[in-house]
């Protein structure tokens, strides 16, 4: 292990430019990966915020007795998908409307707005099918006049979230694959530069795993350095965006550390593939 560490340090020292180039290349590909991750994270967060506001409103026929509505609220509140059901009287609706739409304050009077039951769904039950199903059940009450929940809107939000998730995954994997290839190529240059040494190692009886270990350490170290560089760049971009455009969220510390470690793993993987190929070629 000590020898493997020394050999990988020696390789850094012997070709500082090539090593720096590898780190920078890894850094930039992980930076692209990080930026996209950040965009995906913020889209997801925004979508979640919007989702939390998904609300189904069942307007009641004028003159529905309050006690009937109260029984229905209890009944609806016990649906497994429902987080909260609330009765909103005509007066409450008016107060709410006046507060939300200040400029039309004088236009409203209590007879305009119907009473309603407002329903919020639990997390995980805000997909279009569930929303439709709950809306249909609300409609089946004889005293419900109309149910509104912005069906188009719910579907759009849900689709946006799916697209963000899938695009994030696909592009993330693509960037990871590109990083592995780039790291493999840079390590391959190191491997070729040291092919004489590798041949001598084999000649005197070093095992393949022994020959591989300094390269794995080197790849891991380059990946970690590249990952750290990418983290700094991503953080810088995030700060800049937050200051100049709008407030965005950054990765949690755990995700940031995991990202740098992933850089290390990608480095080690690229390295293993590259050395493995060389060892097979010379056999």
């Amino acid at each position, binding site marked *: 292990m000590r020898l493997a560490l020394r050999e990988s340090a020696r390789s850094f020292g*012997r070709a500082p430019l090539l090593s720096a180039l590898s780190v920078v290349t890894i850094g930039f590909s992980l930076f692209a990966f990080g930026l996209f991750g950040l965009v995906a994270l913020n889209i997801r967060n925004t979508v979640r915020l919007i989702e939390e506001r998904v609300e189904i409103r069942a307007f009641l026929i004028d003159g529905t007795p309050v006690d009937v509505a109260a029984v229905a609220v209890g009944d609806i509140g016990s649906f497994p998908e429902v987080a909260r059901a609330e009765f909103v009287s005509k007066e409450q609706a008016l107060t709410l409307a006046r507060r939300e739409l200040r400029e039309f304050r004088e236009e409203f009077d209590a007879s305009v707005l119907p009473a309603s039951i407002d329903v919020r769904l639990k997390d995980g039950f805000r997909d279009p099918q569930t929303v439709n199903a709950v809306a249909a059940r609300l409609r089946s009450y004889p005293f419900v006049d109309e149910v509104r929940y912005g069906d188009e809107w719910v579907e759009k939000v849900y689709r946006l979230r799916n697209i963000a998730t899938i695009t994030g995954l696909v592009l993330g994997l693509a960037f990871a694959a590109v990083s592995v290839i780039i790291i493999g190529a840079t390590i391959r240059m190191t491997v070729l530069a040291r092919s*004489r040494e590798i*041949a001598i190692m*084999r*000649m005197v*009886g*070093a095992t*393949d795993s022994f020959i591989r270990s300094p390269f794995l350490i080197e790849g891991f170290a380059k990946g970690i350095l590249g990952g750290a560089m990418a983290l700094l760049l991503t953080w810088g971009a995030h700060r800049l965006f937050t200051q100049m455009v709008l407030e965005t969220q950054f990765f949690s510390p755990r995700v940031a550390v995991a990202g740098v470690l992933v850089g290390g793993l990608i480095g080690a993987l690229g390295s293993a593939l590259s050395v493995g190929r060389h060892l097979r070629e010379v056999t």
Partner: protein
Amino acid sequence: MTGPRPADGGTGAAGAPSHTGTFGASGIIRFSSVAKEYPRTGTALAGVSLVVAKGEFVFLTGPSGSGKSTLLKLVYMEERPSRGEVRVSGVSSSTARGGDIARLRRKLGIVFQDFRLLEDRTAEQNVLFALEVTGAPRAGMHAKAARALTQVGLASKGTSLPRELSGGEQQRVAIARALVNDPFVLIADEPTGNLDDRATRGIFQLLRDINAAGTAVVMATHDMELIKRSELRTIELNRGQVVFDSAADPAAGGGGAR
């Protein structure tokens, strides 16, 4: 078929001091009907059978492309036979895996015409390298390297870089590296091919001394003068076949006498 086949156990081992382990009467290197074909260049060896005994000195000769290097590569298992079997110190080419081959090579010293030294390391570091990469214990490593350098007559050149040494000296460093793990066979592929007469004589004498201490030596060479002068066992290859083996034909001279 092939040229003459030597008797089991070969010749020339008598009188050599006992070395590592016992190899029995079957020799430390045994080729049984070995053929080697390369996809592009065709047949390199065809039906070669031979035995090299413990402590023996064997010249391997023949024109370029006759299969000398291929035969040596089969000994240190850089190549596997297309047919037949090579056994070296109990390791069979038919069953050996990567780890077995690595361990086998630690007991073989290999020397090439082009020395194959690491240019950015001193003579001593080149020798130490062979110990370090085979996981030898750290204690006594430097003493072992110094002993090997002394054995090849380079005790005072341990701190020199290869480019500061003459060709003969560089080959001595390569031999010290081959010796540092106490091999039972030294395989030398034209070790004097790049050297002048004086250096050639020096290297050859060094190989004789190493052999006298009990290590078998298999040396591929074109140098007919050297072969004639030394009267050692000589195997001649031509077009991948053994066409002459002095061990099987003592009247022809050589026959392993040292």
